[in-house]
């Protein structure tokens, strides 16, 4: 049984959601709250599996702040944001706050049920157009050249040296090949290992293999 806490400032919505969800599809609505503060109190008291959280609750603590607080106090609880805001700014803020899912109130009922079931099992849930927006955001970041991983922070020279070191060449051999001093090679090597969080040469070789930098043909 999935135990749900419904949080919405509108009493008719809370009543409607309880009527729609309670006792169906293996779900039980164990309580409701009218704002974020009450939600935190009820969550601590009732220990639900899923908190169905409205985003905008003008009279009290809003859903975003409540999600942040809840995830600090009760990290195992899944928060599913149920909102009228089909807006990417809200979506990104909800995810950053620790929400496991984001679904629109206008979404079909079956989708709401499936979203609750997903987040209750520890998975994430986003409605289809939200997934597309997140993908677009990611692709835009890639196009704009924003760092996506530690590897992206390496300079061209550091990548070159990473490749040589991983292939087993000594500092002296690399220096001769690149026509730079051994000391410069050591500096680049030290910098790149720090950036990648690697400590030993075997770590570095494994890393280079994962990145497809080693070609043994």
């Amino acid at each position: 049984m999935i135990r749900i806490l419904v949080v919405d400032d509108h009493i008719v919505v809370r009543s409607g959601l309880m009527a729609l969800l309670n006792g169906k599809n293996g779900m039980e609505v164990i309580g409701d709250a009218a704002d974020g503060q009450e939600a935190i109190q009820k969550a601590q008291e009732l220990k639900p599996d899923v908190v169905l959280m409205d985003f905008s609750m003008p009279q009290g603590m809003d859903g975003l702040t409540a999600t942040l607080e809840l995830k600090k106090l009760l990290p195992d609880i899944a928060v599913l944001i149920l909102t009228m805001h089909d807006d990417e700014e809200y979506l990104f803020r909800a995810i950053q706050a620790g929400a496991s899912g984001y679904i629109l109130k206008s979404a079909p009922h079956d989708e709401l049920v499936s979203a609750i079931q997903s987040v209750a099992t520890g998975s994430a849930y986003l409605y289809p157009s939200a997934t597309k927006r997140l993908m677009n955001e990611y692709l835009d970041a890639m196009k704009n050249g924003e760092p996506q991983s530690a590897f992206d922070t390496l300079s061209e020279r550091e990548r070159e040296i990473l490749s040589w070191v991983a292939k087993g060449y000594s500092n002296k051999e690399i220096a001769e090949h690149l026509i730079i001093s051994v000391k410069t090679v050591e500096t680049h090597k030290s910098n790149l290992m720090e950036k990648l969080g690697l400590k030993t040469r075997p770590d570095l070789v494994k890393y280079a293999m994962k990145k497809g930098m080693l070609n043994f043909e």
Partner: protein
Amino acid sequence: MITIKDHIEQVLDSLRARTGSDFSGLLLMDNPDAGLRWNFVSGNRSIRSKQIILRPGQGLPGLVMRLGRRVILDDSIPDIRKLRFDNPIMLAENLHAVAVIPILKERDILGLLMIGSRKPTLYSSQLIEMIEQEAEMLSPVIEGLKSGPISSR
């Protein structure tokens, strides 16, 4: 002597005429788990509109329950054509626009009052207010219906 059923039928006919609508209907939320249907209709083209049974959460009643407020599907909504397919009453009655107002008593939705148009329509706020007033007046009537068996037109 006028019965509650007669009164509701008069209200729906009058609402349809005053709002210039093609269709009006009343859905009672008496037992959502058993399925919901438009118990009273006016201006319907076929009997199908009364035969549609909606499971809990489905269609316009489900949407109103999740939103806790009125739902207006008219020309102001870009994908109105697509939304029609999620709402069987719109397909059955060939409605291009609907305004659905919840009939409330405290925290509960007792029923839904709907008007519909078979041509592209943009509902004004004055018209929506008029339907909301009608919905408010229907609240005690629906409560009266609960005390006896619900018959329909």
